């Protein structure tokens, strides 16, 4: 069935692939999108952003993937790259991610070069964004990480189908969470673009999670993400429509309380010295037309968000 709305139409699918059923935190299998439960905040209502960087820690739960989930996942994983399969909306959204990034980079009066860019894609899944970033003419390399080994197998297998991506050093997949990824020795060794697409809404504590990510951004580079606002509309569309009415997503897939509002992100980053140039873009899936920019929709639906680290 074709999801009739933009909002959760895609996330449930990813989630479905990795964590089809919702469990209490303690028994939760590792979420591809939510590698860190670094601070054990499991607040059920509006997200509290931690303002103190969590200390680097290794105690986040290690994978305890339920074998029945794996087989369920495997059945779906093969369709990750199916253009008319359950990831179709993600595929359709992908070009817009690049449009947004290009726009951010064009708007910043930066001395940073326009070629040989290095990307870090966090929660890369089957590699939809990572592959496309690696194909761009200005890209030097893409490092793509995901804590779920199964999706990385899909990603690696698909990468072999394109000689451009198979070039040494072009696209590297690492089975890792962001916490386990070694931090750059010096800020200049960071990445020009760090991307976090459709991940944040699965994270229990977005603040500490973002704190882990930020050191990977090179001065002058961008952290770019997409997620969904926690609003009445999104609750109706994703929890009621997608799960209860249309049934395109298993019940309990969504934890609406984890959605992050654009204003919350904005406020949080405004409190971070050395980060600025905030940019947002609201997008909406219009059946028959695809993903469209809708000014102001960042307030109530899917949106892109970017923030730049000062040079």
């Amino acid at each position, binding site marked *: 069935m074709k999801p009739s709305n933009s909002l959760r139409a895609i996330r449930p699918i990813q989630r479905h692939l990795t964590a089809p059923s919702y469990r209490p935190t303690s028994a939760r299998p590792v979420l591809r999108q939510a590698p860190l439960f670094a601070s054990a905040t499991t607040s059920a209502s509006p997200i509290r952003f931690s303002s103190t960087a969590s200390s680097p820690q290794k105690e986040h739960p290690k994978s305890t993937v339920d074998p029945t989930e794996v087989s369920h996942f495997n059945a779906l994983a093969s369709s990750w790259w199916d*253009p008319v399969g359950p990831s179709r909306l993600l595929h359709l959204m992908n070009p817009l991610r690049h449009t947004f990034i290009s726009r951010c980079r064009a708007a910043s009066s930066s001395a940073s070069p326009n070629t040989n860019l290095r990307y870090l894609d966090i929660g890369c899944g089957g590699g939809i964004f990572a592959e*496309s*970033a690696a194909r761009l003419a200005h*890209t030097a390399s893409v490092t793509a990480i995901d804590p779920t080994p199964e999706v990385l197998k899909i990603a690696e297998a698909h990468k072999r*189908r*394109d*000689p451009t991506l*198979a070039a040494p050093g072009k696209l590297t997949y690492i089975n890792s969470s962001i916490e386990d990824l070694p931090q750059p020795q010096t800020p200049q060794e960071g990445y020009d673009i760090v991307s976090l697409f459709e991940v944040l809404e699965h994270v229990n504590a977005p603040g500490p999670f973002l704190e882990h990510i930020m050191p990977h951004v090179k001065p002058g580079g961008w952290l770019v993400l997409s997620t969904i606002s926690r609003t009445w509309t999104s609750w109706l569309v994703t929890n009621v429509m997608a799960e209860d009415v249309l049934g395109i997503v298993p019940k309990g897939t969504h934890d609406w309380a984890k959605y992050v509002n654009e204003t919350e992100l904005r406020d949080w980053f405004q409190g971070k010295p050395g980060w600025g140039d905030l940019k947002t873009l609201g997008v909406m899936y219009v059946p028959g037309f695809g993903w469209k920019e809708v000014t102001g929709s960042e307030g109530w639906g899917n949106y892109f968000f970017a923030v730049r680290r000062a040079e």
Partner: protein
Amino acid sequence: MPPRIPCRAHRAACPTPTAAVRCRTRLQQTRFASTSASAPEIYDVVCVGGGPAGLSLLAGLKASPTTCGLKVALIEGQDIQKNRLPKDASVVGFSNRCSSLTPASVRNLQEIGAWRHANASRIQPYQEMQVWDGVSDARISFDWDTARSLGPRKPTQPTTIAYMIENVNTVSALLGRLEELGGVDMFASTKVDAIELGTDTEQLDLSSWPVLSLSNGKSLAARLLVGADGANSPVRTFAGIASRGFDYSRHGVVATLDLSTAGWGGPDHKIAYQRFLPSGPIAMLPMPGNFATLVWSTTPERAATLKSLAPNDFAAMVNAGFRLSPADLEYLHTLPSGQAEEVAWREKHTPTNERGLPVRVTDVQAGSVASFPLRMRHADTYTGERVALVGDAAHTIHPLAGQGLNQGQGDAAALVRTISHAVQTGQDIGSTLALESYNEARYAENNAMLGVCDKLHRLYSVESGPIVGLRSLGLRAVDAMGPLKGFFMNRAAGGV
């Protein structure tokens, strides 16, 4: 005509056991032949077919900064250089294969930098079109002045309806531009022997990539394989895309004509004429000087008769085609020869308004009379995984609107846009997802054009009864209404 490429190239399972056997046989042959040519050379775009559509696509790709870095190859079975129009070709002796290029097609050729490579002295713009019903004589005339509803035409507004150009001139212009741009690996006088899917080796999985075996022994792997290979497209066969349609049981008779003068409007206001006869439309399209090109759609029997006539009888038949009644024409086709005298006698007894008719044909260029069967074909889709079809490979149209070549130009431009967007956003240009927008952009539009031309053909095949009255009414009504005429002209001119 049977497909030129063996069925083993089908992505779908071989349809019949016999076919499967054939597949295997060919496969062994190829293996044997190509043991030395181990790994295929990898290309971003491999275009099969160097006709107007394929060359326009390649020139478009190479002319754009976004796509000029793509590694592309062209494979053309014929000797491209031999068929080229010499730069200094004088303005006599026109090829019988001419097309009416719409302003939209010309604009695209200008944008990709090819138009200035065309031999301009052999191109004829025309400013007026006269179309009438051979049974009822109801008439419609198109020119931009009468098509405008409000006020006179501004000097900046176009006066040209379309441009008559030999296909060989279009092709030569595109080749000239490609030479200037460089960067295309050209395999001319080279046939595609076979297309099959690649293999999954340790380093690379090319199992979704079409691999082409060429008659020169080379093998190329294509990220995107473009079928610009004409109506019997081997690429379409490989992709397993069905093409549906029917034959009109009509032939198009083409010829280059010598006229008594440059025409009623002189050299600066040229007029195209089309008369709908029950057997099909007869059209005379202006070429430079006192020349014109003929496209006469008619039954295969009459086409055979016309082709057998001496030049003076042929010229008389063309004059008669625009002047005499369908009944007279039917009789004239039964004569083995002597049409010239017969037509002269009958014309004396047929009142005509010569100002509304093309000036008289005095001769026909030696060797220029030819005919080809008219067909309508439309592929089920223009895209598949790592495959896109353009031009006649995707659709073949009744020539009565002169849209065949223009549709191919539109396809090429749309595919360039799709590829360009895919490159800008890092998509795999051969993926079905990336190609979707091309199919969406072109399929409905071409289908509408095929439908209109087909319906016109059927409408005008009727000789008597209420339809003749209605269609005459329709022509007269459209003629009387400037804005509506403007709409039709815009469509014919390739505008919006």
